[in-house]
């Protein structure tokens, strides 16, 4: 099988449609405290497909609202800007990457894993001294490289998935063996193409090699959140957990008691949150 080199992957990712303008704006808002929330709500409302999906999620049982919300402005008032932002980012990106032609790619598991990592990152953020909203979004999007590979190279990635199964190895090993590039790198290329803010870009590209990132990089927290979804089997299957990186664990505070205290919150939070996107 021919390996996909970085240039070929990067070229293909450059051809992807750009993110809806409002999604780019929301990504930038992590670095901007004085964002005009009303204006952003109006921009979301103008993208009808996006707005309809956001309202469907906002009115789902997950949020348990007493009254239905019928406009984005109402959703922002009732749920808060941060919740709406996370929702729009996830919905806006997954709409551009359709993986249904990739044999063996389980979109449902992908979503469960993303939501699991998002909740784990959120609950572990305080222990790690990280902003909780950014942690949640990073967890939600950390494996977007997998989706990009499955959507853009469905045949090749289908072979990777079959190889992983027959060799019982980690997915990144199968990706490197067959493609010469892994989903962290691909996610990093996509994050560049879509102008993710740098903390999110690092979380996406570095979560499988967090020790090579800086000590305050979000890649450290997402590495731990990723492992946590596996050890708690939030996706339902016994997918093997990767070794926990020593340097990363120390950087995150190295407190097993604090970690243990977060586990029940992660499981109950996941039970509620899985209904958001799925």
């Amino acid at each position: 099988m021919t390996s996909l080199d970085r240039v070929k992957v990067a070229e293909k990712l450059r051809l992807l449609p750009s993110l809806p303008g409002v999604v780019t704006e929301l990504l930038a808002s992590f670095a901007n405290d004085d964002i005009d929330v009303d204006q952003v709500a109006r921009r979301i409302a103008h993208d009808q497909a996006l707005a309809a999906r956001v309202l469907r999620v906002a009115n789902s049982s997950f949020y348990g609202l007493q009254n239905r919300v019928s406009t984005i402005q109402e959703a922002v008032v009732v749920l808060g800007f941060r919740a709406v932002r996370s929702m729009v980012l996830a919905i806006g990106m997954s709409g551009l990457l359709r993986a249904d032609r990739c044999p063996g790619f389980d979109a449902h598991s992908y979503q469960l894993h993303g939501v699991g990592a998002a909740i784990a990152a959120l609950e572990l953020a305080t222990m790690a001294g990280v902003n909780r909203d950014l942690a949640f979004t990073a967890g939600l999007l950390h494996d977007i490289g997998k989706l990009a590979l499955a959507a853009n190279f469905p045949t090749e990635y289908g072979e990777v998935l079959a190889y992983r199964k027959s060799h019982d190895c980690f997915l990144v090993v199968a990706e490197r063996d067959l493609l010469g590039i892994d989903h962290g790198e691909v996610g990093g290329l996509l994050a560049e193409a879509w102008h993710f803010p740098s903390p999110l870009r690092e979380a996406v590209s570095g979560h499988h090699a967090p020790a090579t990132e800086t000590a305050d990089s979000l890649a450290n927290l997402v590495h731990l959140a990723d492992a946590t979804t596996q050890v708690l089997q939030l996706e339902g299957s016994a997918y093997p957990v990767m070794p926990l990186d020593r340097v990363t664990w120390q950087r995150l505070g190295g407190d097993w008691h604090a970690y243990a205290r977060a586990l029940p919150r992660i499981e109950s939070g996941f039970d509620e949150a899985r209904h958001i996107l799925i």
Partner: protein
Amino acid sequence: MKRIELIASEGLAPGMTVAESVLDDAGRVLVSTGTVLTEGTIASLIRRDVQAVMVELIVEEDAEVFAARSLRIKHRLDQIFRLAGDSEETQALYQVVFDYRLEHGE
């Protein structure tokens, strides 16, 4: 092992640990998760007409049942950790999850 159960307020006893925060009609927290009940807090809950509270109960477990449960948890974790190596951090992670499953159920 611990078990979470809904107990009618009249059946609450000092020393029980609250497993789920109790809220009033306005959504304000009356007693938060993890609080150990005292006679005072129980009386105050009854005064506020709280009907029942989720609490953590410690239940005695038959030694054989416990051993079988431990083994099931171990098998499952061995499967998840099969490729994770045996570094100090990985072993500690295994132990934390094992203890968590033992205490909070499978």
